[in-house]
């Protein structure tokens, strides 16, 4: 593994640890936002799939 890849992995690991250590109330608010974002992406993906399946 290159030095650069290792640095990226270490930095992601350190960010995850920092997120894990945040107060639970804050983590649950992040969870709410992540779910909203996921739902938006999911809706967009479904709309995209439907538009592709329609005959042109």
């Amino acid at each position, binding site marked *: 593994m290159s030095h650069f890849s290792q640095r990226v992995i270490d930095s992601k*690991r350190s960010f*995850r*640890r920092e*997120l*894990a250590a945040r107060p*639970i*109330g804050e*983590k*649950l*608010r*992040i*969870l*709410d936002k*992540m*779910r*909203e974002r*996921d*739902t938006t992406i*999911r809706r967009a993906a479904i709309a995209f799939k439907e538009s592709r399946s329609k005959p042109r």
Partner: protein
Amino acid sequence: MSIREVIEVLNVMEADGVIERYAIGGAVGATFYLEPVATFDADVFIVLRPELGKLLVTLEPILDYLKSRGCSMKDEYVMIGDWPVQFLAPNSPLAEEALERAIEIDVEGESARVFQAEHLAAIALQTARAKDKARLLQFLEGGDLDLGRFHEILERHDLVDRWSRFERQFLKNTP
């Protein structure tokens, strides 16, 4: 509605006697110990007993209670505000133990009952989908797991062989 408000609803349900005991598992439960874990729904484990004079266990009283408070059903979920919540009866002795020994964690003044980290990790090992294995690795990497307690759970629930395979696959460099 936020997940904290969902927790408030669960506490009111318990206080009203609609559910006997609940505990949060799954990705929302894991978020209490790890970095926030992306999820679409919330898994809430409950003690389910048959109603008086009936043999079959049913979620009906819970669903009726929530519907009367404006919640709707969507497939197998109850929509509590924006959150799809799945009420689950423990499906294994491990999940039963996790529910029995779940702990209370304060969320900004609201108490949430959550599976212990060691139980969540053991359930991830038992369930063993790709995302469960990833979660177990997160628990191990996070270092918050009480490994002594974790191994006791593995022994009690016949998961030691599975753990050895997991260790060989993910934690040891030699095949």
